């Protein structure tokens, strides 16, 4: 069997006295859709940030696509972020003064070179082909999120991390975005999605619940198993 895409071993993250993440171990197989759920303060965003190279664990080890991520330099971490990870945030985080097209090209630019045609195609793939030159302020929440997804995909990342991707969307747009995620999963992308919505969580292959920084239980497509973190 191929090496897991993500191997997180005993990750902990402390801020002063606060333990946001406590001894969490997770493995994500290639092509797997993992959902991370839990109440606010459970550490799910912290976990996602660490998996995405936005934050470093206080202790523990992390390997993505066979490469060790813990302990590398900031420059290497930046490279990891642009080459290996695609990020989708709840608050979109698009650059306000760049068009949809330019926002996608920005991710290309940081990676290697901006390619307008490629960016256009990526946007068309998410149904934003008619709104290439609109500024984020001129787009609805759902449209902005779709641009974010196109951006997340443009550099062919190994893993796609999404933090509450539908949290700010209405029902209709939520459906559109979930549809895209389903399509990506079907195409074989590895997805890790943080959500508080059980319906979104249930779409995943596997669901992990965190509470107070620790893994509480895990569920695999129907089954539910209460277990300790080291059994995953």
């Amino acid at each position, binding site marked *: 069997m191929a090496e897991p895409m993500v191997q997180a071993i005993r990750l902990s993250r402390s801020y002063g006295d606060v333990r946001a993440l406590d001894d969490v171990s997770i493995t994500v197989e290639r092509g797997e859709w993992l959902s991370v759920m839990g109440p606010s303060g459970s550490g799910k*965003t912290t976990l996602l*940030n660490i998996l*995405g190279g*936005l*934050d470093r664990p206080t202790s523990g080890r992390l390997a993505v696509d066979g490469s060790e991520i813990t302990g590398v330099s*900031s*420059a290497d971490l*930046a*490279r*990891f*972020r*642009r*080459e290996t*990870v695609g*990020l989708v*945030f709840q*608050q979109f*985080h698009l*650059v*306000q*003064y*760049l068009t949809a097209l*330019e926002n996608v*090209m*920005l*991710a290309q*630019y*940081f*990676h290697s*070179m*901006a390619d307008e045609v490629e960016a256009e195609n990526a946007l068309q793939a998410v149904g934003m082909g008619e709104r290439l030159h609109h500024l984020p302020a001129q787009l609805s929440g759902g449209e902005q999120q779709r641009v974010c997804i196109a*951006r997340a995909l443009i550099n062919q990342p190994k893993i796609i991390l999404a933090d509450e991707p539908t949290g700010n969307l209405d029902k209709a747009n939520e459906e559109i975005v979930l549809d895209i995620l389903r399509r990506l999963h079907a195409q074989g992308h590895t997805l890790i999605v943080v959500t508080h919505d059980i319906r979104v969580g249930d779409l995943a292959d596997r669901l992990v619940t965190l509470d107070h920084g620790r893994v509480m239980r895990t569920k695999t497509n129907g089954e539910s198993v209460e277990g300790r973190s080291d059994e995953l």
Partner: protein
Amino acid sequence: MSFALRILSASLRHQRARLSVAALAMALGSALVSGLVNLSGDVGGNVGRELRAYGANLVIRPREQPLLVGSEALDLGAVLAASTIPESDLRSAERVEGVVGLVPYLYVVAQTDGGPAILAGLDLVAAQTLNAWWQVQGLWPKAEDEVLAGIRAAAALNLKPGDSLTIRYGRQTRDVRVVGLLETGGAEDDQLFADLPTVQTLTGQPGQVGLVMVGALTSVRPLEAMVKELQTLLPEAEVGTLQQFAKAEATVLDKVRLLIALVAGLVLIAGALTVAGTLNTIAIERRGEVGLMKALGANDRRLAGLFLGEALTVGAAGGMVGYLAGLALAVAIGRNVFESTITPAVWGLPGTLLVGLGVTLAAGLVPMRQAMSVDPARTLRGE
């Protein structure tokens, strides 16, 4: 590269309000530098010209001048068999670079009905320029028989403008008319003044002068150099420096230059602070953006490049505007304070831009480093 420019121009356009303030700050800072550079480049010259209002700082005497004094017993008229300088020799002296005023004098002790008095023949036109403090009540003499009377002389000899008096020297007699009164608070108050030819004729010394007062602009050339040149042109005469004026002038000029330089330094700091403050504000505003770009994997070089690009654009734009504003300011100050025109300093524009960009970069470094050390996770969370 072209996408980088695209980001830059979109960024600039988006922030144009805030960047305009930064550019304004930059312009202000540059205006200060440019104004001071253009002004102080010539402050020496302007102040030097102002200080010529004190009059002559050099004097040319005939060499081996015998004593111009007579005892009470001697006939005063015969005393002055003094040696003189030919007026024609002075033509070349007038053309020496830095000489701005040259007034030849010929003094005699003349007899009048009211008693003896000193009569000075001089180039009245040149005197009007060099001796700026001469205040004349009435008119300056224009014709050959017109004289100025110092106020104490006029009082002692009982003269008013319009009065005539007879002047005797040796066997010569001349009738002259007082056309104006002169008040200086100095030795001139006790003397009578006529134009040079009148006195030369009276003493039978046509084309000769006894003393030459010279005003030389020390901000143009060192005084010693001018003295040397004059001495070479007039080997028969003695060129001397009036220490009273030369020393004081040198001291004052130095102090004014130093003062302006120090004030300029302080003002530059103000300009730098303004730029730094504004760039800092901008950096703080951009934290969210920086966090995002870092999340997307931008490395420090790319980020620095973007910030630098913005800083340099702001710096250049503000710097140009500021340079012109500063130049206009210097010209205005020059005209109103010194009543003279300021010529733009050659190295004014490159100097201002250099300083302006240098300050922008230096001022921008700290906020830039601060901005780049932003933790993407925290800013994306909205902290």
